[in-house]
């Protein structure tokens, strides 16, 4: 039959999906033995196995539905606060991640030229032997610092960090500097915690500064926001694009990119000038009010109106409305805040706004300590590391935590061999060939290294350029360390036995540790033993929690009005920032703007994809929109461009070709594309050839305070191709 969806012209199915098998046309997988034996299933083999999703980093609870002993579907776990019984489109498509026909199911060793994509199968013994030998050779010849390591937010990351610290390398990259450094470092400086919990249960007024919760879905929080809107809560949404969140908001303000700081400085100006702030909270629990008051007195709404293109009256009204709703108000701190060089101070202004209104304890609460109360295997102290970090932490970026790093700077330093040369790169569950700005540079960097090893479940683009590829078991096939949410430690357990020879990260790191002579740092017999050791202080066993999917932790009560900052209070003005030569209170910084004929290049998530890792999932591909470049319809017309045209997009560092989407839903001075497309690996048969990569265009620019990449600070020209 003709393709139903395109016949109706609503969704377009890509060619790669057509003719592919439905999930159900595979033989449904048998549920994992340990889970079956734990009594999750009834006499007919029907039931549910609880585990955790990994389609993004929100880590929802899932229930794998089993019929006749076979896994047929994933459902949201009602017992998990992140899912509340629901899964988002990515979570629903999770089985297809595991059953991706492109899964790498044996270790692979490169036989062709690097990037040519020719590999041979190898045994685990051989592949791990090659990895260990190369790592030891590099260590012996150049020192352990010549091996760099990188990985993206995942539950086995502590063991990966264990491996690199035991090996003795200081060089570590994560995704964080391409994502939320500005937000988390702000919160550390202001509230002494990476990210306070947000509570929507009593909220009456919300300001979202580009937080597109309807599309960049954080399951439970997206639920909370929509339910709040349903109750009649007012939502003001700042974004140069009319996103699906904008459509739900009470008020959409198409702010000029890079000027959110000016908007929030004017908010502070009105709230302080009109004495609308919570004087009790400010005097009892904060420091630095006078400095902030002095500084923001120069930023009235009339000043901000010219910069932001939001009328002064609107800003003044919103400030008054926000203050009237306080303390049941919330200025959301955003998530991926790596936008402009002033993003850190934007975040600071938002954090200060919440503090001035006393929203703490009503819409904002301290985040619980992850992993508190759990046990861990014993291990020796790490060797002393004297080499400088290639990414400039902390000698160039004093405020960036060691576990965050500045991966774009690490890439640049490896390429420039400054302050020294690196020779090997170990990548676990990360795709720097797609994610780091200025992809040409990243590929040059990869090509000059002596040895690259990548761990993933598919042949991601970085694996494609690697010498050894280690196949990891998918999140439905393996254990991971426990994850604490609230007063529960949640379990990820295999719901299906691993396919092929895929292995868990816990197993891979332990084996490798042994071969590197670092076995003492991995004192667990196997994955199950690791979790048993974590559970030991709680007095429960792994088998006891399999059916429920979590262990209860003892209640911990703490004073929510004490902050882990140098002053012990909320720091409106930061002496720490002052001492390092930065602004202790936010001041306006004008970010660069496009020249005539150029556009701001904006990027941001859509509901069906997570960063760079999900585009090969056929179910997500099936229901996703075709990737393209948004341009305001009038702007397109004035350039002689039509919807559907192929266009060339050019920045200072690269050029891409992409289909134009002429739309009303974006400011005329911006274009937008969804990141994650434009894959290089031909081992991704669904994603290869689909769309283009924003990283080909992004110019590297690092904020000196947060180490965050300024992702929206790239300007492009667009021409008919």
């Amino acid at each position, binding site marked *: *039959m003709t393709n139903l*969806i395109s016949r109706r012209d609503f969704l377009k199915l890509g060619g790669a999906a057509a003719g592919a098998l439905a999930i159900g046309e595979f033989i449904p997988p048998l549920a994992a033995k340990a889970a079956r034996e734990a009594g999750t299933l009834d006499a007919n083999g029907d039931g549910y196995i609880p585990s955790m999703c990994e389609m993004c980093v929100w880590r929802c609870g899932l229930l794998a539905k089993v019929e006749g002993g076979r896994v047929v*579907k994933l459902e949201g776990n009602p017992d998990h606060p992140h899912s509340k019984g629901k899964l988002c*489109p990515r979570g*629903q498509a999770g089985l297809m991640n595991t059953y991706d026909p492109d899964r790498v199911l044996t270790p692979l060793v490169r036989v062709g030229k690097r990037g040519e994509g020719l590999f041979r199968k190898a045994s685990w013994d051989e592949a791990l032997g090659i990895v260990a030998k190369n790592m030891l050779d590099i260590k012996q010849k150049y020192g352990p610092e010549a091996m760099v390591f990188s990985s993206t937010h995942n539950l086995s990351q502590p063991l990966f960090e264990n491996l690199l610290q035991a090996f003795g390398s200081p060089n570590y990259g994560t995704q964080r500097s391409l994502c939320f450094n500005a937000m988390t470092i702000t919160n550390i400086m202001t509230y002494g915690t990476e990210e306070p919990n947000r509570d929507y249960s009593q909220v009456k007024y919300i300001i979202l500064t580009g937080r597109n919760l309807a599309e960049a879905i954080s399951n439970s929080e997206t639920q909370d926001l929509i339910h709040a809107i349903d109750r009649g809560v007012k939502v003001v949404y700042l974004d140069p694009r009319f996103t699906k969140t904008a459509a*739900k908001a009470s008020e959409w303000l*198409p702010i000029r990119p890079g000027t959110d700081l000016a908007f929030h400085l004017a908010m502070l100006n009105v709230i302080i000038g009109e004495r609308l702030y919570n004087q009790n909270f400010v005097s009892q629990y904060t420091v630095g009010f006078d400095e902030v008051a002095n500084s923001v007195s120069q930023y009235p709404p009339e000043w901000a109106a010219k910069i932001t293109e939001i009328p002064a009256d609107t800003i003044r009204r919103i400030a008054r409305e926000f203050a009237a709703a306080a303390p049941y108000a919330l200025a959301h701190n955003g998530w991926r805040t790596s936008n402009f060089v002033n993003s850190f101070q934007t975040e600071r202004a938002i954090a200060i706004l919440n503090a001035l209104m006393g929203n703490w304890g009503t819409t904002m609460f301290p985040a619980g300590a992850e992993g508190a109360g759990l046990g861990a295997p014993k291990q020796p102290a790490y060797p002393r590391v004297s080499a400088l970090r290639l990414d400039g932490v902390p000698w160039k970026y004093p405020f960036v935590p060691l576990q965050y790093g500045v991966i774009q700077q690490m890439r640049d330093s490896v390429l420039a061999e400054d302050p020294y040369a690196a020779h090997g790169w170990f990548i676990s569950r990360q795709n720097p060939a797609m994610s780091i700005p200025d992809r040409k540079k990243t590929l040059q960097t990869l090509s000059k290294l002596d040895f690259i090893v990548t761990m993933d479940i598919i042949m991601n683009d970085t694996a494609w350029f690697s010498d050894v590829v280690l196949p990891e078991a998918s999140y439905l096939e393996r254990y991971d360390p426990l994850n604490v949410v609230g007063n529960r430690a949640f379990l990820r357990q295999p719901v299906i036995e691993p396919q092929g020879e895929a292995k868990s990260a816990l197993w891979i790191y332990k084996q490798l540790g042994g071969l590197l002579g670092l076995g003492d740092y991995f004192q667990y017999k196997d994955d199950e033993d690791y979790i048993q050791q974590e559970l030991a202080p709680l007095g429960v066993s792994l088998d006891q929690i399999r059916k429920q999917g979590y262990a209860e932790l003892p209640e911990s009560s703490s004073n929510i009005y004490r902050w882990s900052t140098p002053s012990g209070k909320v720091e409106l003005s930061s002496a720490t920032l002052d001492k390092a030569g930065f602004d202790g209170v936010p001041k306006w910084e004008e970010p660069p703007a496009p020249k005539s004929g150029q556009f701001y290049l904006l990027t941001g998530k859509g509901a069906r994809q997570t960063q760079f890792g999900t585009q090969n999932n056929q179910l997500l591909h099936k229901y996703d929109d075709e990737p393209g470049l948004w341009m305001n319809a009038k702007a397109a017309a004035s350039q002689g461009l039509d919807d559907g045209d192929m266009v060339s997009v050019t920045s200072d560092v690269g050029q891409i070709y992409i289909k134009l989407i002429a739309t009303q839903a974006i400011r005329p001075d911006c274009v937008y594309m969804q990141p994650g497309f434009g894959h290089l690996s031909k081992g991704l048969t669904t994603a290869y050839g689909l769309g283009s990569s924003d990283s080909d265009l992004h110019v590297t620019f690092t904020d000196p305070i947060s180490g965050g990449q300024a992702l929206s600070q790239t300007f492009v020209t667009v021409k008919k191709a």
Partner: protein
Amino acid sequence: MTDIKNIKHKAFLYDATRCIDCRACMIACSVENKIPMDKTRIWVAGVGLKGEYPNLDRASMVYHCMHCEEPDCMSACPVGAYSKREDGPVLYNKDVCIGCRYCMNACPFGVPHFDYNKGLIDGAFIDKCTMCTQRIDVGLEPACVATCPTEALVFGERADLIKEAHARIAAHPDRYIDHVYGETENGGTSYLILSHVPFSELGLPPLTSKPVKEVSEAVMGLTIPFALTWGAVLTGVTVGVHEYNKRKENAAKQTVEAEKESEDAK
């Protein structure tokens, strides 16, 4: 909450003001019902983005079988391949269907769709939402409803949902069009819809409470004998086409194999 098994008249309530167009419902349906990758039982309808920058709004909905109280597909079907279960779902029986496609033309919502690649030998010509009977019969919500993160889709007793829908309108008269689509349309449907924009912008046809079937049945009275004959003709054609396609595929396979062999020989 009432056990889903015990709901006498099951229905959906879809609230367009809560829907974020994330499409979790579609993927959930696709997995639950083992839908091939190039097909779907739920789709996005409506005009989408409307207005001109910066005065914009969105109008879209998730669309699937309306499970009419008096289904036109059922009255149009000359061979009784459709049935309306007492508790709500409109079901299709592939073993009876002759592939005449009358249901496609009869349905005012354009729901049943025909698989031109299939013939009698393969069974089902038509595919559409079943209200997940395999789930509701064991007390579970349909897959689309169960996963909907924003509760834009809810499931329950039709009368209760109609009450709930009117309560939402009464609580926020500024937010909703003052009408519950499906309460009376086409004689009533088991998929009820609330909207902030005119229903036509969601892709829904304007219908009176008089079901189309009352008109169609009058005509059908005359056409059933004709339809049976025509059905038989169509069946012949379909089987023929199917056989032709099969032969073509086999021929193509043989060519490929022959090419391979000749390559191997080299």
